[in-house]
């Protein structure tokens, strides 16, 4: 992706030396980050080290602290303790400077619904003092990638949910930030828009932008270069999706049955069964030793008169890993 600084030629003040691709520099570093709301420890002693070109995912249930972390990284919420450095800027000491290096897209991006797509982009561009030439070049490119090129005259309020979200992303990117913070950017967005959205993210990563996003979609989590599994304000695990899967104790079996609930009832608590998780029409069962347990499961289900159509070993998804890891924690 040809970024703004290629066209600019003159207003190249904020992003001078970012094109190093081999030894990716650390762009986001948080140390000992904590934030409480009253007695509630929303974020507890978080450590993050994220390098340029990463797509870093924050995953966790509602209330885990994802939004709170994002807001602190963006400099709009001051932490109780800890320090944050984004693109070489101390966010807590100099939030105004940090704003030029990063972009934060809140869970619900605020668009001016009475303004057109082009006017929204213009407005955010002006707020960041983006030159006219830069703004036009960058917005054309982003609009095309987002599939919004034909909608520039449309009022933002008349866009679909997915289009609004993509417009939000364009506005957030108009000043060519080095670090992009996205809080659940694709929640409630249709699959086509989501694909385009991710297309833009991949392009950004190519150009060395650091992306931190929180997501509730496990398929999106799998696309991240690294994931932090958050629970109750703490990072429990942080690694690549592949390595996280490898750390999952046990082996995963998928069982298809007409009555998954009864199946879960029948298997819960049986020896060798480490976990049972409903996944729509199928049930994911984690076992210690599949060779030994599959026949036992068949027998037990026959006993309980639960018919099954399929039982097979599968590669775990990130959701399985997440549930498994948190389960294991509870036991120990």
């Amino acid at each position, binding site marked *: 992706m040809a970024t703004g600084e290629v066209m600019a030629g003159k207003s190249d003040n904020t992003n001078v030396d970012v094109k190093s691709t081999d030894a990716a520099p650390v762009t986001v570093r948080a140390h000992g980050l904590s934030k409480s709301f009253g007695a509630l420890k929303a974020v507890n002693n978080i450590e993050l080290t994220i390098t340029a070109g990463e797509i870093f995912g924050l995953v966790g249930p509602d209330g885990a602290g994802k939004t709170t972390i994002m807001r602190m990284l*963006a*400099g*709009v*919420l*001051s932490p109780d303790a800890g320090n944050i450095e984004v693109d070489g800027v101390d966010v807590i000491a100099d939030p*105004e400077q940090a*704003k*030029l290096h*990063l*972009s*934060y897209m*809140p869970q*619900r*991006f*605020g*668009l*001016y*619904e*009475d*303004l057109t797509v082009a*006017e929204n982009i*213009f*407005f*955010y561009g*002006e*707020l*960041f*003092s983006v030159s006219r030439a830069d703004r036009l070049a960058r917005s054309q490119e982003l609009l095309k990638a987002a599939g919004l090129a034909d909608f520039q005259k449309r*009022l933002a309020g008349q866009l679909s949910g997915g289009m609004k979200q993509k417009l939000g992303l364009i*506005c957030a990117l108009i000043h060519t930030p080095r670090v992009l913070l996205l809080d659940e950017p694709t929640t409630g967005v249709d699959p086509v828009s989501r694909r385009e959205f991710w297309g833009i993210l991949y392009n950004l990563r190519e150009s060395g932008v650091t992306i931190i996003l929180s997501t509730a979609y496990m398929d999106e989590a799998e696309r991240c270069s690294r994931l932090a599994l958050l629970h109750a304000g703490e990072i429990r695990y942080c690694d690549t999706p592949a390595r996280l899967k490898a750390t999952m104790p046990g082996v995963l079996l998928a069982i298809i049955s007409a009555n998954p609930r009864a199946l879960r009832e029948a298997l819960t608590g049986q020896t060798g069964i480490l976990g049972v998780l409903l996944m729509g029409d199928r049930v994911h069962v984690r076992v210690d030793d599949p060779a030994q347990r599959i026949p036992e499961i068949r027998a037990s289900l026959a006993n309980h008169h639960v018919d099954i159509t399929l039982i097979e070993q599968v590669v775990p998804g990130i959701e399985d890993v997440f549930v498994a890891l948190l389960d294991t924690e509870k036991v120990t």
Partner: protein
Amino acid sequence: MFDRLYVMLMKEFLELKRDRWAMFRLIVPMIIQMLVFGYAATFTVYHVKTAILDLDHSQASRSLISHFVATSHFDVVDVATTQSAITRDIDHDEAVIAIVIHAGFNQDLENGRSAPLQVIVDGTNSNTALIALGYISQIVTQFSASQVSTLPFRGKPSISLQGISLQYQPWFNEGLNDRWFFIPGVIGTLTLMQVVSLTAFAIVREREVGTLEQIMVSPIRPYEFILGKTIPFFLIGLGDIALVVAFGILWFHIPFVGNPWIMLLGASLFLLAALGMGLLLSTFSQTQQQAFALNFFFVNPFFILSGFAFPIAAMPKLLQWFTVINPLRYFLVVIRAVFLKGVGLAVLWPDMLALTLLALVMLTISVLRFRKSLD
């Protein structure tokens, strides 16, 4: 900074332009309320049903009665001859007021003694009764003035009678005069309501929709945002005031004898205070609905405790203290004085000073609170 402020203002006016109903919402309610207040909110009372008991049957008593018959404020429904007839008129709601001219009325006047006149009022509607009493005293004053060369009335020297009648003249003798008093008040009150609610809603909407958090992660400074949000409403407020002032002059024929620049100065200070109030209100609300409810509770006391209709001097001490921080109170003084009296800064400086201080205090508090509310 001017770039960001400029684009902020551009955005505000663009939004306003896109909002088809904006002009309607800004102008129509003002005009309607002007009309409602102009026609309905009046202290003038016409056709008060009056019974008169004439026990004197003299030249003077008949002359006095003719004064009452002549004015449209009173309808003389009964000229009775017995006390019981009068009592019946009042009891049966046939008359609201009864005037008793005692025997010897003429005699007393001729002898230069105070001639007592008894007035009985139905106090059920104290407002009407009080107003009617005011008219009665005028009529009697006029009457006595007409007799004054030879016949001092109520034993007062003629000079003081002349003085009293001169004082009353500009305020009550012409039936339209309390509209002159009301319309300037309406202008101030409506502007306050309009500007406070518009400012509060506009800011709360940005909070509610999420644009506030969004632009706070841009390099925009809080004061740029605040200026961008308030300058348009300052201009709208000035436009509103100009509109209703013109309307009051052209439609209701309220005289505008003062200096328009003094009015502009007073209006500007008043608007700054109102903007501060709107900004302050916005910091107490997360949603437009909350702002709406708050606005109601917030603005109403300012309206009632402004001297708009209820005299401040008649309020309990505690409420009188509250009126000290009420910008509307001072603006009403300014606007009425400029409209009707044409006085300048030499007289109005204390009110202007109060408005300046209030504007400063309100804006400071609200800006500080607003900045805190961004966290």
